[in-house]
């Protein structure tokens, strides 16, 4: 088992999804049980399903000086960066700490592959069309290159791409770099946008629901796909009132590329690792933001884990009924939703779900609940059997 880590303050954080830009938009949706899924109007070839689409990206090109990076994914990265004053907070931190002392760790699954798809639809004599002949768009590190150019960090910069755990794992990378003294702060991010690859890919796997997804409902029938950008600024030290990253656990299922381990072995290892780093037991946890994709298998495995590991008093929900599954951005989007829930004192609903799997019915919040949340977890599991659990604690203003 790993040793305890020193909690690190999250001095700024924000998210942008179909619910809107910034924490207030997400808080308002959670208080009102108002989701953002709507009928698919994204794909050119019809695909009956619900999507969590961020409005207006098509009409929001990047500023002229960043035009080389212009594509849907980097537009969403830019919009997200400008919410909640995050860009100013990040720049202030870089100025205060020194650009060499700030890392940039980005999570994504499909990066800007939407631009590559568009190029293949509009080939010009066998080549990508002129306006898409920009190598920075056709590589997994596209969001990392874009954000490094915007922010001017000179510390380590990398893109983590482990499918749907990507932007949860960025928190682990950041903590290690700060602990070892490589940097004093890290900007962690997650960005993933709607594209044909994921919509038709999950459709080919028969995992897409025709309706808005219903996590943990016995009648659930698949995922809804969304898009999001999220950011957090993690520092070595800072405002005692800021919430803290207190733990994380990473593991591998070692079972199958796209089916979870039947007993959730990897998920259990990630949870145990996160609790050990945080010095917590299951009974200390107030709220769990579940991975809860609403596929038959994922929710079955995660429901069993929830039901047999946590006391009936813990509150848990999946917020994918609000936002859709935002894939490589899900880790950080749901971390920010969790931090927002802690600040607001509200447990988000498991939106769209009418009933809960019996094994976790006691723990699962079907409707939103007012409640103090001091310690919370967030689960993210991905293809390749990649699992990550994050643990957060509220800052001092919430302490008795």
């Amino acid at each position, binding site marked *: 088992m790993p040793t305890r880590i020193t909690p690190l303050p999250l001095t700024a954080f924000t998210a942008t999804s179909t619910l809107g830009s910034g924490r207030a938009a997400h808080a308002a949706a959670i208080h009102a049980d108002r989701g953002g899924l709507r009928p698919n109007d994204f794909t050119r*070839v019809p*695909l009956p399903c619900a999507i969590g689409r961020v409005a207006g990206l098509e009409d929001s090109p990047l500023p002229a000086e960043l035009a080389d990076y212009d594509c849907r994914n980097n537009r969403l990265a830019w919009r997200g960066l400008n919410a909640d004053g995050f860009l100013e907070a990040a720049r202030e931190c870089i100025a205060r700490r020194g650009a*060499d002392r700030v890392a940039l760790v980005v999570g994504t*699954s499909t990066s800007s592959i939407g631009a*590559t*798809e568009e*190029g*293949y*639809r509009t*080939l010009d004599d*066998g*080549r*990508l069309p002129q306006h898409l*002949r920009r*190598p920075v768009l056709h*590589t*997994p*590190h596209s969001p*990392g*290159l874009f954000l*490094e150019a915007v922010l001017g960090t*000179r*510390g*380590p*910069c*990398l893109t*983590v*791409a*482990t*499918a749907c755990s990507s932007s949860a*794992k960025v928190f*682990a*990378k950041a903590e*290690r*770099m700060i*602990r*070892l003294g*490589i940097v004093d702060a890290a900007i962690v991010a997650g960005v993933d946008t709607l594209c044909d*690859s994921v919509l*038709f*890919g999950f*459709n*080919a*796997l028969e995992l897409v629901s025709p309706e808005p997804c219903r996590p943990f409902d016995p009648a659930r029938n698949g995922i809804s796909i969304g898009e999001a950008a999220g950011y957090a600024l993690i520092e070595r030290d800072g405002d005692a009132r800021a919430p803290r990253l207190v733990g994380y656990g*990473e*593991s*591998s*299922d*070692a*079972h*199958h*590329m*796209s089916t979870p381990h039947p007993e959730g*072995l990897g998920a259990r*290892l990630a949870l145990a690792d996160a609790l050990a780093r945080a010095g917590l037991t299951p009974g200390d946890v107030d709220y769990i933001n579940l991975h809860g994709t609403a596929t038959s298998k994922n929710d079955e495995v995660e429901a069993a884990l929830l039901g047999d590991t946590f006391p009936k008093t813990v509150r848990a929900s999946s917020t994918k009924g609000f936002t859709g599954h935002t894939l490589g951005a899900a880790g950080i989007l749901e971390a920010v939703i969790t931090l927002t829930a802690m600040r607001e004192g509200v447990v988000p609903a498991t939106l769209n779900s009418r009933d809960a799997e019996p094994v976790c019915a006691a723990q699962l919040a079907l409707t939103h609940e007012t409640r103090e949340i001091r310690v919370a977890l967030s689960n993210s599991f*991905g*293809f*390749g*059997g*990649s699992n990550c659990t994050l643990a957060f604690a509220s800052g001092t203003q919430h302490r008795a």
Partner: protein
Amino acid sequence: MSALTVYVDGIGFWAPGLADWAAFSRAVEHDDFALPATATRPAPGALPPTERRRAPEPVLIASEAAGQAATMAARDASKLACVFASTHGDLAITDEMCATLAIEPRELSPIRFHNSVHNAPAGYWTVAAHCHAAATAISAARATFAAGLFEAAIEVASEGEPVLLAAYDIAARGPLAEMAPSALPFATAFVLSGARSERTMARLSLRTAHDTAISDDVPASLAPLQTNPMGAQSLPLLVALARRQACGIVIASGRDTALAVEVTP
């Protein structure tokens, strides 16, 4: 920052015509590498026979190099946390998927889709090795090798356990090749640990550097391997390790930063 120090306990290597670290080391010594006329694929013993036949090329070459490194280090692969680093991921599947999506998106193959994730080699490797440890897949453009090496060293230093690093890229196909050039497949792997042992081949001290020239000391006959992005990024360090000489290597690691690696046999 003070330097991060790790020990190389095993090295894996695979490229066309160079099936392992011994073959690569000989080619460095004699400077007599010749690219074979026909394409070849490894059949990694680390994978079950069915996967050896049908797994995507990145899985094959990364698993081949990773298996060699774990064997050389005499480490139980089921216990090794791993970092898989690739500049561009599966360029063949990206080309095929985008071509299918342009014509008939509903024809997209489910297997191809789940194999398209950047962590597919990490997924196949951990399944084959029965490894439940943390596995990460990263990309950092021309700094991918440096970022992977640095991340693996960070995990060694912070978690106190050895870490497997596999770094690879395959050849580009189709219209994507103009944007992400790569002429051939190339993979290398290290097992890194935090303490010197009887298996140790070299000590690496890693430090961030600025305004430093990137190393490019590679024997002339090995130049074809630099047409692969991971070959271009990793060869100066691999050559230094093969020569078993103490030296300093500088690898690109960011927009205007570099990773300085002090190699001590």
